[in-house]
């Protein structure tokens, strides 16, 4: 199977089938993304993407037929990306484990947002917003702010808490303002 001469004889129908499979899988992943499975969203999307990438690698890139050394090199690359992400996230996700002071930033929102019209825009609309609770909890985790008057964090948190963030354009639907053709 791994004889290099064999690659000359890979029939076209293999590639056509792979191509069709890729299109179908793209369709599936887009269709599935319209449902909300919670944390499974990521798992499903990544699983489909991995299957697609595997198809491309095995057939379009001939890994299935070629010297297995190439596949080893490729997998080694992916493996080290995995090591990098895993070990880095062991830190970033576990900073508060021993000592909650280290969990997150003192001032969550970057300071330059003050000068934007975002907050103003928020006051302009009145209707409810589905993710209010999440933002509320983000703010309350910054409990250190109140006990230790460290920085100018207060204005932000009070803004978030008091205004009950609402009526952002993005809540009206999925990307209504994303119509590039209009812009040009």
């Amino acid at each position, binding site marked *: 199977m791994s004889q290099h001469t064999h690659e000359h004889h890979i029939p076209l129908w293999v590639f056509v089938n792979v191509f069709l499979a890729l299109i179908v899988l793209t369709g599936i992943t887009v269709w599935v993304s319209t449902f909300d499975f919670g944390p499974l969203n990521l798992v499903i999307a990544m699983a489909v993407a991995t299957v697609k990438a595997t198809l491309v690698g095995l057939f379009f890139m001939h890994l299935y037929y070629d010297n297995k050394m190439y596949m080893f090199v490729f997998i080694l690359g992916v493996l080290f990306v995995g090591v990098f992400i895993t070990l880095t996230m062991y830190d970033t996700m576990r900073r508060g484990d*021993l*000592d909650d*002071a*280290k969990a*997150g*930033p*003192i*001032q969550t929102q970057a300071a330059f947002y003050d000068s934007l019209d975002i907050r103003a825009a928020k006051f302009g609309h009145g209707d409810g917003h589905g993710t209010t609770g999440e933002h509320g909890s983000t703010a309350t985790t910054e409990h*250190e702010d109140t006990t*230790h*008057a*460290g*920085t*100018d*964090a*207060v*204005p932000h948190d009070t803004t978030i808490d008091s205004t009950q963030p609402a009526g952002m354009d993005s809540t009206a639907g999925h990307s209504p303002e994303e119509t590039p053709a209009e812009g040009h």
Partner: protein
Amino acid sequence: MGNGGSFWLPPASSTVAGEVDSIFYFVYYASVVLFILVIGLTAFFVFRYRRRGGTRQFTSGFSHSNVMEVTWTVIPTILVFVIFFWGFNGFLKMHVAPKDALQIKVTGQKWFWSFDYPSGASSVNEIVAPVNKPVELLMSSKDVIHSFYVPDFRVKMDVLPNRYTKAWFEATETGEYNLFCTEYCGTKHSEMIGKVKILSELDYQKWLEAADFDTTIALHEMGERLYKSKACVTCHSIDGTPMNGPSFKGIWGKTEHFADGSSLTIDENYIRESILNPNAKVVAGFQPIMPTYQGILKDRHIDAIIAYLKTLK
């Protein structure tokens, strides 16, 4: 521990220092023994098997021994496992402060340290703490990364911008100790050196009372301390030199011109507004870079600063 230090290590003056030193010396002596073994053998072989007469000889074919390989793989492995667990154990102790610890807030900034105590007192470049009592440090930086390091306590922790980190120590002896910044932070990194002053419980209480200027000292003196401790000093001089912000010298009652063209005579209201909402009226020729002190300074603090500014003729 608690001596004058040794050739290798400075005096051990905190509760965790003893354990750190024990591991240090364990690794040290293990290394010395192994080093003498390796280098001694090398020297012996070089001497014993040196080439004599300048002609090459056939030599022994002795080139592998699984027993030896396993030996010098397994023994060091066991050794380093011991060191790992021991070191990790000490590390955990360094990171979990006792529940009853006294909490002091540490702020690092180019290029000085400031400390805020629970009573409201504060100090710059000198942290004062009682002996034999755990002290927890809640640290953050105002600009780049600094690192809080007291060699005699074996305590070190980076001080990060926009994030709190913690460290703690319990000093076992009164005295003065060096405090270094060990994370490179620019021009005067090497001058970012402070002191740790460890007092007896009684002296500490006395110091606190003296330092608690909210109640004990004149308003303008409190203002002067705030001027130094709240970092006004980094941008506003009192000798007339303009820095990042205008100098405070003779500021009271002066008429200032602002970036937007308006002008105003400096009074209580203007100073109050400049502290809480600094960029509302920026003096012409300066950048709107001052941070707000909303939530940091209480009303009484602001009054004190105003009182202090009045004295700067």
